[in-house]
């Protein structure tokens, strides 16, 4: 059938992710899902903003004294770069260059994992240095929920991309898995979009007061 057809760089369609009906459906369905995710994260942001710096007493650390900007900056650079590397991966996917696509996906995964590592370090730091925990205040609960949901998305994204890479490592590109790769990269970009707002709204605005 068409989805398993063998392709060459010449016969490979320009928009392989949407060349079959299944691909088209996957592509659209995933975009719609991202529309829903937008609302999900907006709700989390709204909750965070409503509860920012809401603590039971004066002894609790507030956003201003808590955040460590250099760390956040480093994390931001990692994630932004990983977005670019996944663009590279899709670039090679469209050029029917499976090896390079895998390579760039691998880089993306490494960057994402480094980001996740930094985030875990950061949380750990807040908990031990500032006693800012999930249960210590409404601010804490809201903070860890919002940032943690994002972190959870990163972790899931890593798992997903790695699964795809391993599963397809022996098979190369075809019209059956091209949409899968494409959609995973969309997800990855979306994670980055959310992060842009997190570093702006949570960290930078947290420092401004």
């Amino acid at each position: 059938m068409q989805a398993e057809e063998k392709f060459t760089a010449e016969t490979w369609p320009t928009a392989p992710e949407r060349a079959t009906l299944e691909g088209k459906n996957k592509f659209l369905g995933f975009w719609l899902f991202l529309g829903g995710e937008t609302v999900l994260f907006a709700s989390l942001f709204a909750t965070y903003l409503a509860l920012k710096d809401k603590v039971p007493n004066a002894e609790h650390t507030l956003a201003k004294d808590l955040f460590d900007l250099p760390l956040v900056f480093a994390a931001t650079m990692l994630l932004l770069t990983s977005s670019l590397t996944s663009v590279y991966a899709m670039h090679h996917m469209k050029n029917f260059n499976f090896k390079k696509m895998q390579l760039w996906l691998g880089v993306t995964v490494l960057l994402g994992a480094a980001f996740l590592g930094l985030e875990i370090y950061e949380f750990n730091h807040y908990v031990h240095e500032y006693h800012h925990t999930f249960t210590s205040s409404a601010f804490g609960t809201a903070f860890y929920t919002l940032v943690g949901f994002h972190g959870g998305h990163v972790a899931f994204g890593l798992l997903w991309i790695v699964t795809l890479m391993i599963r397809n490592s022996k098979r190369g590109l075809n019209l059956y898995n091209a949409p899968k790769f494409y959609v995973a990269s969309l997800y990855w970009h979306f994670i980055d979009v959310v992060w842009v707002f997190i570093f702006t709204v949570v960290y930078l605005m947290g420092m401004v007061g």
Partner: protein
Amino acid sequence: MSTYAQKQGFGATIWDYLTTVDHKKIAILYLIAGGFFFIVGGLEAMFIRIQLAVPNNDFVSAGLYNEILTMHGTTMIFLAAMPLIFAFMNAVMPLQIGARDVAFPFLNSLGFWLFFFGGVFLNLSWFLGGAPDAGWTSYASLSIASEGHGVDFYALGLQISGAGTLIGGINFLVTIINMRAPGMTYMRMPLFTWSTFVVSALILFAFPPLTVGLFLLIFDRMFGGNFFDHTMGGNTIIWEHMFWIFGHPEVYILILPAFGIFSEIFATFSRKRLFGYSSMVFATVLIGFLGFMVWAHHMFTTGLGPIANSIFAVATMAIAVPTGIKIFNWMFTMWGGSIKFTTPMLWAVAFIPSFVAGGVTGVMLAVAAADYQYHDTYFVVAHFHYVIVGGVVFALFAGAHFYWPKMFGTMLNEFLGKITFWLFLIGFHLTFFIQHFLGLMGMQRRIVSFLPGQGFETGNLISTVGAFFMAVATIILLINIIMTTVKNERVGNDPWGDGRTLEWALPSPPPFYNFKQLPLVRGLDAYWLEKMEGKKGMTPAEPLGDIHMPNNSFIPFVISLGLFVAAFGAMYRAETAWGIPVLIIGLLITLGSMAMRSIKDDHGYHIHKEDLMDDDDNKGVKA
């Protein structure tokens, strides 16, 4: 793996349904599960009404009453009305647009099983220490204070079934956008399809706030979070907003498909095309859009201040305009038509005055300053049962009679159908009309009992009597269903004789691949157009070719089962040793079966042209 052309035993049939990815069978699953939960919710309603029949009654205890009341609302909305709507969407929408299937058959089945396991989980609370008791709205201060696991069942159960609904919504959207038959432009889509489209969009945007709200509740109740604990800086109003940002669109998620079903019925049994088709479409979209701007009308007494209250009051009233457009368009569809009062048509006709009565009380509620009096009284209970029962339930009953032949190939008995209709109609007005006055006379809602001497006695008794009429009507419908199924008299493709849309061009029930050749759509009411030109069926838009079909799969069931198991683990995590292991096992089942799905390629199979050729349309239904 193909189920094509097989004779099946009982076990095989069960297995077939457990693994099916066919939208028509999933529709039947939704119909059965939703119907079951409707009976459960209805029984709960009967308990409510019996308890309130006389003052100071002690038919049920106070704590139990709150559980019944909560489960009535939650069950009816999430586990009865929505799934029943999904049943008709699944059964009809793909046929109406001339598609062979939905866009994601696998996800379609996953959506059903998630809903089903979520619902079962929620209802198991009855046997495991008590059901949720904080109202279907589960307002935070009370839901946090509520003891036992009731509210945990609510939060986890709705989370699971909500995920299923969201998946279903995305699936319908993609189906409608990508899989319409040649010639089926947006402005030729039947209104039921349009309302499926708009409702799916509402689901897509309204369920995430519920998901978030439920997470906040779960975190607070089960993991020591402080979202709603004001001594720790939390704020309960967050829950109220989050719930209603979801909750108000939710009521339009219920009513728009009802509008869709009625649009089809009015046109069919008036033998006239829908009056003002484009403004009907426009009104549907507008109602959906405005539905997101009005949620705070449920919070007028919360103390948001006069500016917010005024804005939301006026925005709410605005919804009366597009809804009015629809009401008048329906009446003018019948105007000049040739009306045949079949059972579905009776429901549709009765819907107009019933729903208008409920709608206008909605507008009265939108008068913020006056709502300070109405809020949380039986006036509100009357309002929403008028719109929900008079709108949604009427539509479900109408749809059941109307689409029964398409789903099962047999006709429900018209005589019994009419008895059901009259009993239910009378019972409905008896039950709920009087409640407007009870509310105005000072009776709050959600009370287990009332004291004598306040003038509430007569009204409540009348209301209870009415409820019994509805119960008898429902039982007659069940009898009708059983009789019809036993008799099993098969009908042809257009049993009502007046079918207008594509689904009536197919045999009843349609073969599992729906269309042997995709039909060519040449206008609104595609099948009617062909009939008027004296043709028997649709003109094909493609030559006969192989048809690609998805394989059945047991994985959706297992994924949902895993979450079901995990939810128990999460809930009993704190007090038992087995909680955490069970949680992990459940999640592993889910993730493992998801991984299996993505690792094992599943390309489906083909029905070959040759097989299709000897397959006579009228007896081609073997699966």
